[in-house]
Structure formats: C-alpha cells, structure tokens
C-alpha cells in the first residue's frame, strides 16, 4: 500500500517536472484565431512543449489595463491594432521589446518592428457583396450609399474608426486628403452628416464573422468586412466579391503585456511567429499580408493576389492613420457611440 502511494507520489512529481509551461495568447477570434492556431500555436507548442492558452477578445484594452494596474497579469501575448499598440506602449501597458531576441529586425517591413510591437500581418477593411444578388457591381463606397440602385441593408463595423473614413470617402474626399479633412471639426461633422443619410439602412457588426453570416443569410446586400473573411467565405463556395478600391489597411501586432510572468517564453513565441516560414502558413490559411519580407516569396502565387499587400490591391487603398486615431480616438468613438445610439 505504502509502496503504491510512494510510486504515485513519485509519478506525480515527475509529471509536474515535465509538465508543459503555459503561455496565454489572446487574439481577435474566429477565422483569424484558427489561422493563428494552425500557423503559430500548434507548431510552437509542439516544438517547445508549451501549452498555449488561446483566448479571444475584440481589442478592448480595459482588461489589460486592469491587469497591469493591479500587477495581476493573466495574459502574456496579445494581438492589438496599431493605435492601441502605440497608446498602450506609452501608457506602460506593454513590455518594450528587445529585438535581439525576436529574430532579424531587418527582415521585417518598416513599421512592423516597433518599440512594443511586432507586426503579425497587414489586413484590410474592404467592401464586400454577394455578386449573385446585385445586378451591377459596386465600384466603391459612393455606391455603398446608393440605396436606389442597390436597395437593402448594409453592414458596417460599429466603431468610429473605419466608419468615419468610409463616410468621407463616399462623400468624395480623396484618399490623400482623408485625415486632413477628418482632423477638422467641419470634416467630422461632414462625415456624420453623410452617415445620417444611410443610418436607417445600416446594420452594425462587431465581430468579423457577423458580416459574412449576414451576407449568407441575405440580411445585408453589401458590407464592410475584413478581407481575409471574405476570401475564406469565397473558398467555402459563397459568391462574394471584394472591392479593393477605397479599402483601408492596417497592421496587427503582437505585444507582451507588462509584467507577464512568462516574458522569456513570450519573446520566444513572437520570434517564432516572426519567421517567414510560419507567416507563410498563416497567409495561406487566411489571406492577410505578411510582415516578414522574406515570407512573400514563399507564399503560393495563387494566394498572393488575395493579399492586401498585392500591388493591384494597394492601388486604391489607404493606410489607417495611427497618430490620428491616438489623438482623436476616444472623443470620436464617444461621439460615434452617442450618434449610433440615438
């Protein structure tokens, strides 16, 4: 009997020794997360005997702030959009990165190697529609407002970011002038006025899967959407089309939450995700542009045309102005929320 217990105790001891380390990675959910699982989480945990605890969120910084402020950090690595990255970095919510541990900085595209963030991919907000349901293909955001030619509901992401840009683009503001106009009070009023025209026809989405679901169910005829989701739906056989003209692209980055108990492991993970061969797998699973310049050449040529970074797709596109959103984000989000709720 005692022997049995001793053996069990020994086994338990041994088990706890080889027990895998844990790393909590929180990213935007859905297909994006599934692709990350395939390209990064699974191979990384296999190679390093690490349990990856994969979470999802919608980019809210509140949890991170509460964790950092109370020193009770449960998340290690998070995926954030650019304004959140820069703001969080200056607020001390993220660890400054030591690029000597994260792979070759020179391989990364310019903005992808920043003080607190390592770029994961370039994604784009595009106009998407069901080509079997529209008689004529829309050419850009101006057509999005044309409820006569294209009757029915449209969907937009429920945030000031993207929505205000889209409204101004639809109102005829050029891509180059976009943020100059939006930085003036008159420009903001103009955007809201334009939105007023369409308000009754807009259904707001919050998670990236919703607009695709609604296109499938016929709830909306056109929508703004993450380009990767649209391509994924196309692969499933849905007759969806993308309008790249007027698309808005941005980069998502990995950041390490300040005070993470697994910082070294988190760095190892980010270094792993930075490698071109892993980014290739990611881009081939969901067509978001890689941040490692060497990855592009490795990607299946058939996929390359779907990436936001493909030259043809970049032509009518505009990058989201991070500085603008850092300065005006809260004010505009609040006004937008008040506007939408009325």
């Amino acid at each position: 009997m005692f022997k049995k217990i001793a053996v069990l105790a020994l086994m338990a001891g041994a088990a706890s020794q080889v027990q895998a380390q844990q790393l909590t990675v929180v990213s935007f959910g859905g297909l994006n997360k599934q692709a990350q699982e395939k390209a990064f989480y699974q191979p990384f945990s296999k190679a390093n005997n690490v349990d990856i605890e994969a979470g999802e969120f919608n980019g809210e910084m509140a949890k991170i702030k509460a964790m950092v402020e109370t020193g009770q950090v449960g998340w290690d690595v998070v995926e954030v959009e650019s304004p959140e990255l820069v703001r969080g970095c200056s607020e001390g919510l993220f660890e400054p990165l030591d690029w000597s541990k994260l792979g070759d900085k020179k391989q990364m595209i310019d903005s992808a190697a920043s003080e607190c963030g390592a770029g994961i991919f370039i994604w784009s907000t595009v106009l998407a529609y069901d080509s079997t349901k529209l008689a004529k293909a829309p050419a850009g955001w101006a057509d999005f407002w044309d409820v006569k030619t294209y009757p029915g509901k449209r969907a937009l992401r429920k945030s000031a970011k993207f929505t205000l840009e889209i409204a101004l683009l639809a109102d005829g503001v050029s891509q180059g002038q976009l943020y100059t106009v939006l930085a003036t009070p008159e420009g903001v009023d103009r955007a809201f006025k334009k939105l007023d025209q369409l308000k009754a026809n807009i259904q707001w989405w919050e998670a990236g899967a919703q607009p695709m679901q609604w296109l499938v169910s016929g709830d909306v005829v056109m929508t703004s959407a993450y380009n990767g989701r649209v391509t994924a739906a196309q692969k499933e056989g849905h007759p969806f089309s993308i309008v790249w003209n007027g698309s808005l692209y941005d980069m998502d980055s990995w950041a390490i939450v300040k005070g993470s108990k697994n910082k070294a492991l988190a760095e190892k993970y980010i270094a792993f995700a930075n490698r071109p061969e892993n980014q290739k797998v990611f881009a081939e699973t969901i067509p978001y542009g890689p941040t490692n310049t060497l990855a592009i050449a490795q990607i299946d040529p058939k996929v390359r045309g779907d990436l936001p970074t493909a030259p043809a797709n970049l032509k009518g596109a505009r990058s989201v102005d991070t500085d603008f959103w850092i300065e005006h984000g809260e004010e505009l989000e609040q006004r937008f929320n008040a506007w939408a709720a009325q």
Partner: protein
Amino acid sequence: MNHHSTLIERLWAPIFSVFSISMLIFLVVPILVIVPLSFNEGSFLSYPLSGFSLRWYQEFLGSQEWMRALRNSLIIAPAATLLATALGTLAAVGLARGEFRGKGLVMAVLISPMIAPLVIIAVSLYFFFAQLNLLNSYLGLVLAHAALGVPFVVITVAATLQGYDRNFSRAAASLGAPPWFAFRKVMLPLIAPGVISGALFAFATSFDEVVVTLFLASPAQRTLPMQMFGGIRENLNPTIAAAATLMIAASAVLLLLMEWLRRRNEKLRGASPT
C-alpha cells in the same frame, strides 16, 4: 340570458385554449428549434436542414476549447453550489429561528445579489477583485457565482422551513442531542428537498452565468456559456447547436429533479404534523 352566456362561453373556451397553448409553444419553440440544427450536415446555423450528421457533436467533443470550457463549468458550478448551499442553508435556519432587530435589512442584503443588475455586479467585482488578486482565477469565479446563487438557497430553504415543525428540534434537544447532531439527524432530512432544490437553483445560476464570467475570467477559466457567447458573436456554426442541445438536456434533467423533489416535499409536508 343564460342561453346567451353559454354561447359566448362556448366560443370563448376554445379560443382561450388555443391562445394559451400557442403561448406555451412560443415558450418552447426557440429551444426546440436548436436541437435539429445540431444534427444538420450543413455548416450554417439555419434551416432548411441538409442531411443528418453527427459531425458537430464530434467537433464539440474533439475541440480542446469546448472541452476546456465544459470542464471549467463542471469545476466552477459545483464548487460555487457547495459554498452557496452551505452558507445559505445555515443562514436560512438562523433566519427562521425568530425575529430580531434589523432582520429586514439582513434579509435585503442576503437577497440583493438576485436583484442587482448583472453588469453592475460584474463591473464592481472586476474592480474589486483586481485589488484582491482574484481576477482571472477559479477562486474569484467561484466566489462570484456563489454570491449570485446564495439568494436562491436562502429563499427555498426558508420556504421549506415554514413547513418545518420546530418541536422536532426541541424534542431532539430535550433528549440530549447536541445542536449539530440534532440539525444533521432531525432537521436536515426534513428540509432536504428545500436544500437540494436551492442547490439546484444555485447550480443552474452558475452553470448559465455569462456576464460576470466575461468580466472576471481569462481564457484559462472560460466556461461553457462564455464559450457560447463568443461563438454566437464570432462564429455562429452548428457546434453551438450541439453544445446548446447538450445544455438543454442538462436543464431537462435539472427540471425533472426539481419536479421530483417538489412532489417528495409535498408528501413530506403531508406527513409532518403541521
């Protein structure tokens, strides 16, 4: 005049029945509509069905995330139930022992978790637990869920105690039984149905809870409802239907248990000399 009223009554009764039955159908349809979808072959959560398949159950059972969520729910809910039932039963027994000043206030405090809006509880606990190092922990969730379940235990046990004849306890005491012994051997068996149904309420509360969990849990503590919430927003696919069907089965079991307890309680009450 008599003739007149029977005519209206004759028309009235079937209309009334049809109305009532359709309301009852209204109550169950959204639940029943989920079940066939979980056996649907297609990958969207909508009708018409495209063929029978168990793939979404395979998906559910084979998914690490869903399994982790199920496991967490099965850790947190029983722990919270145990805590809520133990504390709630003791308090209900104490309350039933008589009047004292401030009883109304005490009662109000004990019931308040049931009344306060969940978001407020969630946000308050989020700020407060952050200071106590209880965010992103099982303990924090168990405490929060127990607090939410407590009012149900207090109410159901208190209701059962109404039918409890205190002379039983007095008899036990006069025969020399120490209080704990008297409680365990005399009172508890008699009020057991109330305690158990309170516990079932507490269990259901924790097992269904999503708002507080969303605020307090990190991915490692994700529960079944939290996973479902993410699924409904992020990825409305039939795996949710499979999970939902299993949860419906669980609630059906809870419901049958409650019904059985209620009948038992009625019988006991009939037997007790009140």
